[in-house]
């Protein structure tokens, strides 16, 4: 068996090939980074973030996108599905016991019948 090669029965995969790939990518990244200019003047406008021409807020909170806004389109598109899922996650212990009882009954029926 070749070192690092995983045979799945349907194909194979080699971890070291990927590591070589990442190493080459890293070399390219560092090369491009080193090609950048380092003679900018620290502490001047050259060193500032461009924020649409406006003054950059001091606290990051004012320019950050909150996590609750992430994947808004995805959750909005699936809102009926999410409504159903959230209605099942009631947080009420007796509901959870009910799910356990119903699932057990269903499993029993499937196995016994």
């Amino acid at each position, binding site marked *: 068996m070749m070192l690092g090669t*995983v045979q*799945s029965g349907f194909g194979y995969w080699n971890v070291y090939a990927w590591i070589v790939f990442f190493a080459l990518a890293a070399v390219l990244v560092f090369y491009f980074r080193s090609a950048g200019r380092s003679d900018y003047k620290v502490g001047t406008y050259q060193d500032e973030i461009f924020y649409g021409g406006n003054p950059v807020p001091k606290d990051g909170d004012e320019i950050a996108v909150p996590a609750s806004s992430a994947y808004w389109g*995805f959750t909005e598109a699936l809102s009926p599905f999410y409504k159903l899922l959230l209605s099942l996650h009631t947080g009420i212990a007796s509901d959870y016991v009910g799910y356990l009882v119903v699932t057990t009954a269903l499993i029993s029926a499937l196995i016994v019948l």
Partner: protein
Amino acid sequence: MNWQIHLPALLIAVPLLGAFAAPAFANRRLRDVWFTVMIAATTVIAFLLWRRVGTEGIVVYVMGGENWRLTLPSGMKLPIRIIMEVDAFSAFMALSGSIVSFAGAIFSLRFLDRTTGGEKFVALYFLLTAGMLGMETTGDLFNFFVFLEIASVASYGLIAFWRNTPEAIEASFKYMLLSTIAALMVLIGVGILYGRYGALNMAAIAKSMRLGLPEKVALALFVAALAMKCGAVPLHMWVPDAYSQAPAGISCFLVSVSQASLYGLFRISFSVYGRALDTPAVAWIIIVFGILSMFIAVVMAVIQKEVKRLMAYHAVSQTGYMLLGVGVGLLALTHPQAMSEYGFTAMQGGIFHIINHAMYKGLLFLTAGSIFYASGTLDLNRLGGLARNMPYTTVMFVVSAAAIAGLPPVNGFVSKLLVYESSFAVHPILTVMALVTSILTLASFVKVFQSAFLGPARARFSEVREVPRSMLVGMTVLLVAILWLSFMPTWSLSKLVGPAAQALVDQAGYIEAIMRSGL
């Protein structure tokens, strides 16, 4: 006499000693030393036991007998004593669980400095370790129930450890309520089999197993109860509450403890019932549990705004891969051609995912604990820019998030690849669901990375610093394990996963190890 013959007993005795002596260590420094030494000893014992099983095959240990190997004394037809039976699957689970237990304990040392009652924490932690390891190494159904209860009771205390927060008490109560019902179901199942066969030993029952109505009812009770304990959808509701409210070291360890229930489900399905199962219903139930767990939980994870709660849903989702992989293996169990074509690969994928998940999800929970320790919040809407202040934690998070998302070359990819390709042979929709789950997993961890670690610096976190060294050491243990599993996939499959999958398939070998030991 070679002391290593007592490894199965020591695996339980050492953490039990750790638990019962812990209340005597009121001094914090002594308590920390005791905690570290005893949990390290347990891990070393688990490693030695795994190595012994690898070289000698199934290890059988009879407690209280005149001979540690004599399972059938004085012409008895059935084994009666407390018997531990450690095959490659048991040893694999014990090794995986004890590594996570060690990492969680080291991480928890500095956490305990911020609270009182640390010795109670240590005692419960050791009890949880003993319960988990006992479940994974016992050869007896009733003892399995006893260890399940030991682990459960310790879990109730640890989940509610921040007892001044009502959410923690509520989470513990919900888990206790569901666990008690599940434990009763397991006990009734054990009682049914004892009534039918007059035996509690798994191998002895398996040898006589004839699938009638009582056996089917018992199996249904086992499957439902253990699926609840391992957090399979739709019985997963306790998981987000419990994992998010427990201290981070406990959340990390609870992943492995839940896997002990998964172990029980697989052990009973393969080793106790195994080839007596004349219906594919059980395999399909496990596969459907897997698909539901993967998809529903990851969809729920995407919308979470609290780091540990999001990770808890992912713990459920990742359990789905294990259920799918091993479920496909169970489906192929009585069909040799299907087993050789895709069943065994699926089992290898599912079992490899067990150890992969234990390591990267454990590390993810520890990084969440580090974020909370340093910043005082886990709210993704408030977090941000922490990569500047916590570079080591950031690296740990990136590696473990890549692993859980199944990004090559990290370990999660290999196990998922095996599950994808083998489940495709059963039905393409299984693979599609698994792939979609993986994409959504990546999406939700990109969200956590972006929200907590990237972005502009927040003024309120200007004083935040990297967590203490012992917490980094705890995380590093799991990081090293992830890197080892990632960069040594052939070794992992041939030495760790392959023998474990083979042991699970080899029901005759499991039975013979007990039934021949009396000769």
